[in-house]
């Protein structure tokens, strides 16, 4: 096999059509006779619906029908939660259109079906819904008291409590012993604010009910899961449903969902017998698409006086919001295995209580559980360093797994196959100019410079490449974690690759083409990647959890290998040699020790014509493969941020950001770079800019991009990115995931840097996002309380 393509920084073949507007997003799809939907949403966070009067709306011009919860109560089922984390997990029924009560502001109470989007919108104003307001519970620390209930019928706000204890699991010692024997005990509470995924393309669904099958186009990350789950929810045979994810404009986990709006669009299409389209507005998207993070982390870390961590105790309150979405309940669990991060302390306990509140439900958001865990441990490492007056890098180094200690079984029970934290850190330090910046920091402190400098450090690892099916089974997740691929050699020798890992902006078409071009020895241009349509890609588990290359890509390679094996039989037959004497290099089958060779394309044509094939050979050159990983992959990295804090205004500026990520073998460095940049932006956004804020009644205050501040390019620094390459041993390519890396590592690096800049002024902590007003208030408070020098 040549390696002309793998490792090459090719611009993505997807980009030309996307950036010149020759794209096909769901909202671009128009079908003959298509009707348009508009949703009527609850303005109240918790209320009983006493009546819905749609008569005026029904007689509004262009309106075909109005669906209320009562109209569809017997068809709509309950939207799925695929991750019952405990056998006694509690969950309210989750109707697509609310029937009796609404449990968050933005919940759908009626749907207008009209001949134009404008007519639907006009009529939505005319639906008269009477509500009887109920008390709301919004705050996690209130919710846990069970005084006000988000769902009174459940009798509690607690959905489930999930515990991991290294003492009980046999993966380490009991944490109680470590805490009792602690020479140093660090106790902190951190708040992971609620975030909104804010994908660029709002959600949109078109459903065509005409013909034998219902066809659903949706702006989704998960066409396969959506098909299965919609079919189950609505009682439609799966075989009668086809789901297509056309061009999808980003998801970040926010489109890893089976949404009320998708179900409603199917119901509307079945009700009218006509194609129906629903496209949400940005305001609806911010209000009612699922949110992320939203946890309170109560932490205890024990260590020796020398800075050796001996144990970690994690108590989590996790905000489910009003309902359990597809994997809502499992998000904190994805973090549970990551609190120990790259460190090898011997005792660990994790306890998470999943709580309902009257807010939009939460679910996967880039990193999903792992950013929260990494933030906690990396903030604690800095706190420990401060407590012991040690350099924060030194504390980390004392505790991390040395490169010669791999494979390493962690206190959380995972087996890390590989890693080299020393190498990544050394490279990061060199690029950063650590010593010079520390010296400048001292100068600024001494001169009382109004702009103080801080250095933020974060190391990280994550489990990605979701996931070994057995592991998912052990965690009670309903589905597996395999991925499927098909490789087809056409009579012309061109290749079609079908992948179940449906991309929504990641560049799979490019990366998979590079993989196959190398493996089959054909030009990159001759490979076409097909995905995102359940009729083309019949099997798949889609794209999330940095799984595509390490799981989906491996399936592609396995299918390509099967094609080679199959073609070899025919090559031997054509060249009248024995199969053992045939070798495959650079796209050609050669008879060892001779000049004789046949190209893959010639074999493909011979198989197509089928005039002269070995007896019993099925005339096709297609192969399927399904790959189920045996382990996760564990990318890691070291991120360093130089932060400037204007102590007069509280304004925070990133002066320099260096990250060295180890994502194993890289197929396309340009794509990796893009993932890192975007990931960093989203992690920095959590540290400094974004927060979903609700008022006391539960109304989303940050309901538009005027108030929900997504940073843009002008707000971000030039990133210095570099890589080390420690190949993963859990897949044949040596690749690891990269989709979430930047998001996971950057948040704690930034916050650690902000605190490092102002800690000498007496500031101990600042809640995220570290807005200028919060930073200023923290400085003022430190002044009032006398400020520690």
């Amino acid at each position, binding site marked *: 096999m040549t390696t002309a393509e793998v490792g090459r920084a090719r611009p993505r073949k997807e980009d030309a059509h996307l950036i010149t507007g020759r794209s096909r997003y769901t909202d671009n799809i128009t079908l003959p006779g298509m009707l348009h939907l508009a949703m009527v949403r609850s303005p109240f966070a918790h209320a009983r619906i006493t009546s819905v009067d749609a008569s005026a709306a029904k007689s509004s011009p262009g309106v075909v029908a109005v669906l209320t919860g009562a109209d569809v109560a017997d068809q709509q089922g309950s939207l799925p939660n695929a991750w019952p984390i405990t056998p006694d997990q509690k969950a309210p029924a989750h109707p697509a259109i609310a029937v009796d009560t609404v449990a968050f502001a933005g919940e759908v109470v009626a749907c207008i079906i009209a001949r134009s*989007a*404008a007519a639907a919108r006009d009529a939505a104003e005319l639906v008269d819904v009477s509500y009887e307001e109920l008390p709301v519970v919004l705050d996690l620390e209130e919710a846990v008291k069970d005084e006000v209930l988000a769902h009174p019928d459940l009798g509690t706000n607690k959905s489930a409590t999930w515990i991991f204890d290294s003492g009980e699991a046999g993966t380490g010692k009991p944490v109680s012993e470590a805490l009792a024997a602690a020479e140093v005990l660090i106790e902190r509470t951190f708040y992971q604010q609620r975030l909104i995924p804010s994908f660029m393309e709002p959600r949109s669904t078109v459903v065509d009910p005409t013909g034998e099958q219902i066809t659903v186009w949706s702006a989704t990350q998960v066409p396969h899961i959506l098909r299965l789950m919609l079919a189950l929810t609505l009682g439609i045979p799966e075989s009668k449903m086809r789901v297509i994810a056309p061009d999808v404009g980003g998801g970040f986990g926010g489109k890893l969902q089976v949404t009320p709006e998708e179900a409603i669009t199917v119901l509307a299409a079945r009700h009218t017998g006509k194609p129906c389209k629903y496209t949400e*507005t940005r305001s609806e998207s911010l209000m009612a698409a699922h949110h992320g993070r939203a946890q309170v982390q109560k932490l205890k870390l024990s260590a020796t006086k020398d800075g050796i961590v001996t144990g970690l105790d994690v108590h989590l309150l996790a905000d489910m919001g009003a309902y359990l979405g597809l994997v809502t309940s499992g998000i904190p669990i994805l973090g549970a295995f990551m609190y120990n991060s790259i460190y090898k302390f011997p005792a660990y306990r994790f306890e998470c209580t999943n709580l309902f509140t009257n807010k939009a439900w939460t679910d996967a958001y880039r990193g999903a559980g792992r950013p929260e865990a990494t933030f906690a441990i990396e903030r604690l490492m800095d706190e420990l360093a401060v407590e012991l007056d040690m350099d924060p890098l030194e504390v980390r180094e004392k505790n991390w797994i040395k490169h010669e200690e791999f494979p390493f079984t962690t206190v959380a029970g995972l087996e890390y196959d590989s890693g080299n934290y020393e190498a990544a850190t050394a490279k990061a330090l060199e690029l950063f100019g650590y010593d010079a910046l520390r010296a400048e920091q001292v100068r600024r402190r001494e001169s009382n410079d109004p702009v103080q400098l801080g250095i933020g450090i974060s190391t990280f690892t994550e489990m990605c490449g979701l996931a070994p099916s057995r592991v998912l089974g052990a965690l009670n997740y309903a589905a597996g974690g395999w991925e499927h691929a098909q490789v087809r050699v056409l009579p012309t020798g061109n290749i079609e690759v079908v992948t179940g890992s449906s991309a929504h902006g990641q560049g799979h078409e490019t990366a998979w083409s590079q993989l196959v071009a190398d493996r089959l020895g054909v030009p990159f241009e001759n490979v076409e990647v097909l995905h995102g349509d359940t009729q083309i890609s019949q099997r798949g588990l889609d794209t999330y959890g940095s799984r595509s290359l390490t799981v989906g890509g491996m399936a592609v390679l396995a299918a390509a290998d099967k094609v080679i094996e199959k073609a070899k039989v025919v090559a031997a037959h054509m060249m009248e040699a024995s199969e053992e004497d045939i070798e495959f290099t650079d796209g050609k089958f050669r008879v060892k020790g001779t000049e004789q060779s046949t190209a893959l394309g010639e074999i493909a044509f011979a198989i197509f014509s089928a005039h002269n094939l070995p007896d019993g050979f099925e005339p096709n050159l297609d192969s399927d493969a399904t790959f189920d990983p045996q382990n996760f992959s564990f990318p890691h990295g070291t991120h360093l941020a130089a932060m400037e804090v204007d102590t007069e*205004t509280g304004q925070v500026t990133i002066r320099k950001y260096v990250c060295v990520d180890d994502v194993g073998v890289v197929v396309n460095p340009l794509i990796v770079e893009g993932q890192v940049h975007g990931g960093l932006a989203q992690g920095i956004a959590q540290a400094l800019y974004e927060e979903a804020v609700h008022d006391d009644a539960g109304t989303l205050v940050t309901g538009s991009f005027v*108030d929900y*501040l997504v940073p843009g390019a002008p*707000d971000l620094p030039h990133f210095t990115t570099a890589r080390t390459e420690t190949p993963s041993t859990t897949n044949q390519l040596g690749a690891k995931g990269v989709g979430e890396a930047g998001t996971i590592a950057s948040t704690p690096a930034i916050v650690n840097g902000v605190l490092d800049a102002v800690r000498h002024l007496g500031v101990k902590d600042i809640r995220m996002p570290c807005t200028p007003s919060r930073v*200023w208030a923290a400085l003022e408070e430190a002044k009032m309380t006398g400020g520690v020098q």
Partner: protein
Amino acid sequence: MIPSAFDYAAPATVAEALSVLADAGDDVKLLAGGQSLIPVMKLRLADPAMVVDLGRIGELSGVRDDGDALLIGAMTTHHQVATDPLVAAHLPLLAKAAATVADPQVRHRGTFGGALVHADPAGDLPAAVLAADATFILAGPGGERRVEAADFFQGYFTTAVAEGEILTHIRVPKYTGWGAHYEKFTRVAQQWSIVAVAAMVRVEDGTIAEARIGLTNMGSTPLRAAAVEQALAGTPLTREAIAAASAHAAEGTDPASDLNGDASYRRHLAEVLTRRAVIAAAGL
């Protein structure tokens, strides 16, 4: 994001526009760059029965020399104001303030007049225009009338423009040779001002002879920092003197509290930003 249905007219002259307005009744809105009006209509917070587009009225656009002042057409875009050579020579404060508005797309559509009539307390042009003591020229059914800047901004999103009137021009006295700076404080680049300070100073022989300071988002209207202006007049051009004078910046203000900060934070920012704006305007 679809507005309610509305009628639309695009007159070619101010006279024609006035007669359309007169006929249209009270449920009518003028459309300039649409950067504030259209979002509000899409959110259905406004649903005028008729929209009168001023975009085809050529006489409303551009900057003219008018002796001791510049005459700026209401439909002149932020981008034009930010890059116009006359503005740069005589009213650099306006150019600097206009250049901080939103992003290039918004600056190419949004207009000087539209921003002033919209009168968002966080808008960047009102404070600059107030500091410059501009005069607003309004055309109405009864002819033309002039309103001084001090009387133009009347409250939260409220100005002296009456029903049936059109703001045609803004006459801004020249401040040739004055130092100017617009100090805008935001969390992200394209954000509205959390607080901003518009400053102009005339320096003579190492002293600040005169200063004009406008405050953005420190109340329901733009405000003059009169106490700072008085304190600066005649003081030596030093950082210390400027800092001392700037300590008066929040006097008489009544800022709102919101997600970006509470009132006390805004008062504090006003002082810091005033100091910085004056120092920059004076070229210290």
